[in-house]
């Protein structure tokens, strides 16, 4: 009886130790994965910052003004003027399309009834 108890408790210790180590390794694995992800996030953020800075640099007003002046013949861009404000009823909408006409209609109610009796 007593030896059975010893054997059982030894087995329990082994099982618990296995479980504890297993959890430990899983945690370490998850942590290293999180570290790798964080590295990737920080690299991505850094890249985003560079791209944002580049975007702001390429869109600086002085450059856009020069580009508009260089490409004036093609684009015809001018500074915004007060007379360019319009009212919504001045907008020429495209004419309303003709309503769709169906002349080859198919009766579908019967098909429904066949499918779901």
């Amino acid at each position, binding site marked *: 009886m007593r030896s059975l108890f010893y054997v059982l408790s030894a087995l329990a210790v082994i099982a618990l130790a296995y479980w504890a180590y297993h959890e430990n390794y899983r945690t370490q694995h998850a942590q290293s994965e*999180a570290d790798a992800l964080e590295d990737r*996030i*920080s690299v991505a953020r850094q890249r985003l*910052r560079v791209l944002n*800075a580049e975007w*702001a*640099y390429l869109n600086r*007003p002085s450059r856009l003004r020069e580009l508009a002046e260089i490409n004036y013949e093609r684009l015809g861009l001018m500074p915004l003027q007060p*007379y360019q404000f319009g009212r919504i009823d001045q907008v020429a909408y495209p004419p309303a399309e003709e309503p769709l006409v169906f002349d080859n209609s198919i009766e579908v109610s019967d098909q429904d009834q066949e499918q779901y009796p």
Partner: protein
Amino acid sequence: MIRTPLRPLARILLARDKGENPDAIERENIRLRHEQMRDRARRRAEGRLLVLGVMFFCAFALVGGRMGVLAHSEPSGPRVSAAGADILAQRADIVDRHGRILATNFDTHSLYAQPQQMIEPESAAQALVEIFPDLDEARLVKDFTGKRKFLWIKKVISPEQQQRVHDIGEPGLLFGPREMRLYPNGNLAAHVLGGAGFGREGVHAAEVIGVAGIEKYFDERLRDPAHGARPLELSLDLTVQAAIEHVLSGGMSIMNAKGAAAVLMDVRTGEIISIASLPDFDPNDRPRPLTKGDAGDSPLFNRAVQGVYELGSTFKIFAIAQAMELGLVNEDTVIDTSGPMRVGGFPIGEFRGKNYGELTTSDIIVKSSNRGTGRIALKIGPERQQTFLRSLGFFEPTPLEIIEASGGKPLLPQRWTELSTVTISYGHGLSSSPLHLAAGYAAIANGGRMIQPTLLRRDTPQAGIRVISETTAAAARRMLRRVVSSGTASLGEVPGYAVGGKTGTADKPKPRGGYYDDKVIATFASLFPAHEPRYVLIVTLDEPVETSGDKPRRTAGWTAVPVAAEIITRVAPLLGLRPTIEPEPLTGITLTSN
């Protein structure tokens, strides 16, 4: 264990035979037994002590060992998930009111050398000079071959330069990571942003600190990791700022001016939509301050905030508004503006010695009569005038959030005499910055509340202290509107935007006293649309001269006003202001006959 009997029969019998006392044997045996027991107890106690000692030793060794390990290991914070990525940026971005970047950080490298690791110092120095032409080769060779163990070569280099230095293949040339402040828009809003430089520097990192402008004012806030990636939102509008700087620099060159400043302010929130000062500089490469000469000539000088000038007739509206508020005059009160007029022994004259005769209060503003304003100011008196101007903020530096703002302290007369009262009523004898003027005009424009100009974006109007009543403010606005529609600022008319404003042309004071004849500060203080003001625009030109006519013209009506009109034409649509038809004044209050 076999116990020795206390009275062994054999020995007792033997002792009895010999006639000895058998009790002695018993006592002897008891003694021996006690000795045995004592020895055993001592051994056990010693063993226990040993075990205890070993245990204590182990425990203390553990504690000591742990302490040693803690002392020698790198400290590591508790693990926080997904937070570390924010802290990379040392300094928060600065963005305009629509989130467009005004200042950001850029990762780059610094270049340093460790000469003792160098293999071919001479050829390395030669190759470095090819990459960086501003380096001195002889000096580099001296440094590389001398006793120095470490030297900085370049604080910041570009990725292309880094690659070229890398290609030299010299192991003694090393790179350190550097975070650099970048102003992608170049000169735009340079005076607001100021600039940044390196503080304490190490090989692996360097502090980026603000050296001027809003960068310095909010240095703590920008560097505070608690704010993390949240950018500092300014009230400036990048597009409007660019348009104003563009028009202003064009106007400055057409009017042959030495410098120019413009302030555009929202009259309800106090937000500065744009503030420009020319000449300007590139905050990416901030020039050094001038060591000699007038600091006001440096491009670093912010004319809109630091420059205190006598702003001339633009001040007249304050005297008139106060007089109307006090009930001394109304719009139609007739004042005799004919000369001569002497105050404190000094003659008060009009522009070019004109004489306007009898004018209504409104016409005093429209025709810009010095004597008329002066006579009204005398009715107000020095004390009340001081109180009113103080409430409009003309006694203190503006509270703008840039470090230079505290330098723009208005110059006040030492003794506020009656003469001061008269001259200050038309803008001489009190020097203030264009920003002060903008804040004062905003009070008239928003219906009489004094608001503080701010560079930070805000969504709600400021509830400022009331300095004049709604009706007085409305009357003042009608006068300002008449100045543009039929007065000295007729070139300022912008169809659809009902500009109201007041011109001011002040002679520049000589450094040694007196005034120049041919150098003026021309100012146009305007608000638009006059019937429902949204914005105040101040344009100041330093020493302008307009030479299209027979004679050079210097008055603000010919110089600052057309520039301001062009600015309003360009900027009002950008601000989303739709041109409106100005409401006609009611027929009931129109003066039909005298």
